[in-house]
């Protein structure tokens, strides 16, 4: 049965860990329902990392005067978890080039990491909102 969990946080960096740890906890719940005796750390760590990246992106691009909220929606299904991260910042694309590691870049790894740890990543603009959706199967 599909279960939906929603969490809305202020779009500030200080809430990034709360968002990421919530994602890890929800992923652990999904793991626990499917494989009670097997705590799938890779699955849990993947959601912690992906949500940290997406939330940080939202917080860093928020208008500093307003700090619009960021909403996380978790859709837990048997053997699969999807999380969407919604903000009302300026539009952005997720088709960014892979950073040239030989030039020692300090940025540009976030979306690369999300793509590497998730099975499916999509972005859409819905009215004034950015919605990035990230899914992974157990």
């Amino acid at each position, binding site marked *: 049965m599909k279960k939906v969990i929603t969490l809305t946080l202020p779009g500030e960096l200080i809430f990034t860990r709360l968002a990421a740890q919530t994602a890890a906890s929800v992923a652990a719940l999904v793991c626990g329902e499917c494989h009670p005796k097997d705590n799938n750390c890779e699955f849990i760590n993947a959601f912690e990392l992906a949500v940290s990246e997406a939330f*940080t992106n939202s917080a860093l691009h928020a208008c500093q005067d307003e700090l619009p909220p960021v909403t996380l929606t978790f859709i837990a299904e048997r053997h699969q978890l999807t999380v969407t991260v919604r903000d009302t910042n300026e539009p952005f694309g997720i088709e960014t080039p892979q950073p040239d590691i030989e030039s020692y870049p300090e940025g540009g790894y976030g979306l690369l990491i999300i793509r590497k740890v998730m099975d499916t990543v999509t972005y859409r603009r819905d009215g004034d909102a950015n919605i990035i959706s990230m899914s992974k199967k157990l």
Partner: protein
Amino acid sequence: MIITETTQNGISVVTLNGTLDALSCPEFRANPAVGDPGQTVVLDLEKVDFIDSSGLGSIVGAARKKRQQECDLFLACMNDKVRKVFEITNAQKLFHIFDDTGAAVEFAAMQQEACK
């Protein structure tokens, strides 16, 4: 993030304990040994319970600045969670990575001596 610093065999060993992300990486960059491009550092990552792209970027940036000054930044005691982030971004190829701090200090001291 708790940052502690010791000196072993003339090499600064900086130990991180906690989360290295966008919120904490300014503190990491501001550490005197990390921020001084003229100082070789061994970074002990065993107690880093989480690192994301911001944390990774701050380590890569510190290494770049040190290498421009003929110094270096070595990584030691990576746990699996930290190692995964370096591997999926291919950043591990930029670093000498050691299983223990002692071996990293020994290597760093030898390299520093060779540069004199």
